[in-house]
């Protein structure tokens, strides 16, 4: 296994109290595999990813438990110096907002080239040639003549492609893309997702794709992990999740999306709001909003059950997953 996160816990200690942002997340990705991490805003998707990358804001953040195994070694036992070597060369991250993650006063060519001068000890001239090659690869038209341009001179879609180029520069084994297309228009979103999926296949990388939009991942993900209040509530191969969700939260999410091909009277809506992370409900965190909830849900935290039916290969953190699957 390329990456295996085991029972990760992260807290933020703030003036108002302790926010339990990540409460026992486990997931894994292999080479050439795409894992989509799906969840609403605040569910802990980004914090988990930051912990994996080693870029968590500490303090106020603190990893209070768990392991992050990368190629079999627990990154949490690494020194910062070793961590830095892994970052960039072996794992890279793509952020939602390309404009604020690129340096505004350096040309994109210089920023791409830096990857090669710093990590690979290349000469400036060679690094520039590499930068052009990368820009070409992510389909920036007339790359050779644009390598000296600054980030603000590119459109949103092009900047996101440059971010992808940057992440790919050293051909890492793992890429984490945190809402890479959320800020883009639908027609440009499709271009960027296609490019990312194609390069991932070509380089046989592991890809973690973080999103709040179920639609975005349908084409490219192998597995989906659904997060709620800092835990994975369901994980399964893409097709299974759509056909037969085994957790009431996943089911509710799927039903509340309006569909292009039908026009209903009323949209299904999950009642209530996601919990305050300083005060997560006892038992199952979803119980105040769950249509299937009963007494045991308010007292006992559901473990991640194996969904053992009909060749299914999923997991669900619901005491009544069977009922959910069939109801």
């Amino acid at each position, binding site marked *: 296994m390329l990456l295996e996160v085991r029972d990760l816990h992260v807290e933020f200690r703030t003036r108002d109290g302790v926010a339990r942002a990540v409460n026992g997340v486990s997931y894994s990705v292999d080479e050439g595999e795409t894992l989509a991490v799906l969840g*609403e*805003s605040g569910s802990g998707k980004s914090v988990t990813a930051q912990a994996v990358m080693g870029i968590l804001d500490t303090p106020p953040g603190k990893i209070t438990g768990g392991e992050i195994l990368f190629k079999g070694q627990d990154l949490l036992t690494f020194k910062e110096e070793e961590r830095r070597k892994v970052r960039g060369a072996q794992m890279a991250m793509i952020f939602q907002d390309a404009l604020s993650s690129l340096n505004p006063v350096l040309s994109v060519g210089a920023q791409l080239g830096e990857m090669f001068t710093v990590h690979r000890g290349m000469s400036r001239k060679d690094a520039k040639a590499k930068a052009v090659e990368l820009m070409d690869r992510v389909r920036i038209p007339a790359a050779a003549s644009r390598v000296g341009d600054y980030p603000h001179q590119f*459109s*949103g*879609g*092009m900047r996101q492609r440059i971010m992808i180029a940057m992440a790919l520069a050293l051909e890492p084994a793992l890429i984490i893309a945190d809402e890479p297309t959320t800020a883009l*228009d*639908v*027609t*440009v*979103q*499709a*271009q960027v997702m*296609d490019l990312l999926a194609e390069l991932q296949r070509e380089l046989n990388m592991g890809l973690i794709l973080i999103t*709040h*939009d*179920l*639609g*975005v991942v*349908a*084409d490219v993900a192998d597995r989906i992990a659904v997060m709620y209040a800092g835990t994975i509530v369901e994980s399964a191969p*893409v*097709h299974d999740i*759509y*056909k037969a969700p085994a957790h009431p939260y996943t089911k*509710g*999410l*799927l039903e*509340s*999306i*309006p*569909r*292009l*091909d*039908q*026009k*209903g*009277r*009323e*949209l*299904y*809506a*999950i*009642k209530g*709001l*996601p919990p305050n992370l300083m005060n997560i409900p006892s038992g199952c965190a979803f119980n105040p909003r769950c249509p299937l909830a009963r007494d045991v849900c308010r007292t006992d935290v559901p473990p991640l059950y194996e969904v053992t039916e009909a060749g299914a290969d999923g997991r669900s953190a619901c005491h009544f997953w069977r009922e959910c699957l069939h109801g």
Partner: protein
Amino acid sequence: MAESMSVPATGGAPTAVAEPILQVRGLVKHYPLTQGILFRKQVGAVKAVDGVDFDLGAGETLGIVGESGCGKSTVAKMLVNLERPTAGEIRYKGEDIAKLSSRALKAVRRNIQMVFQDPYTSLNPRMTVGDIIGEPYEIHPEVAPKGDRRKRVQDLLDVVGLNPEYINRYPHQFSGGQRQRIGIARGLALRPEIIVADEPVSALDVSVQAQVVNLMDRLQSEFGLSYVFIAHDLSIVRHISDRVGVMYLGRIVETGRDAEIYDHPTHPYTQALLSAVPVPDPEAREHRERIILSGDVPSPANIPSGCRFRTRCWKAQERCALEVPLLAVPAAFRYEGGPAAHPSACHFAEEKQVVPPEEKRDLPSGEAPQEPPKS
């Protein structure tokens, strides 16, 4: 000046609406681009809105979709008088609002209210919810005498599904979805006939989005409201709209009833937009053809000649660079009628099914598939 601000020709009357409450004709908003400090010289214009026509029927919902920067918000602001049009007419019940006396205009404004895109920044953080929702009464005191206002605001909170006791709280004490409800309550305060909602749910999470969309649906039937509903999410727009207009670079390029646009699109841009919509169900995706457009939307300061979509259109030919296609029912469909016969601004309009037909999909019980109108 007159040169660069010239008003483009548009395609005349859009699809007929039985009882239009609002008629928009040739609406244009150009922002001048200037150069020089001492002698400001106009060097061009950002053509944010460049000739938009539509009708809004009483009690109906017109959806407007399009990508970022195509001019949706600018249209919205002109409808509620936050921006003055460079040219064109906005007729409310037949009267051009630009020609009204200031008194008559005030009454019209009362009847057209706006709900904004971003629930996080559109509410003043230093005002209580009661003051925010009641603020319109300061401008239109005739609607609610001072002594009545608190009660009115509490009723409005109740209508949008918030606890009336929250009247003294501040915006930061509410979630995004709740804040959007506050924005809607404020939009309803003056009992308007028309609500212009600019991306009212775009900033919200899926599960909360559904709550707000349902609320808007309910309020529409309860108060007989007409909506102009702006969004970039085509699925939401279909859900809520009776008719839809697709915008590209400052113009409506295709318009029609929801089934006409979604099941029988004839404009290449609409087809590409529909095919790019992320659809969650992987099996449904397999029935779809995907059209991936190359390139980005051109700048509205530099609109291509002829058809404005031609730089990204896979069907573009020489004629497209020379002749502006008008928004009208394409000749090919004019006589045969049927769902493809709706206005589409393309010289080579052709039907292309992008969303798989509904019969293939399982509809929830009690829900009949939309019948395209027979003409």
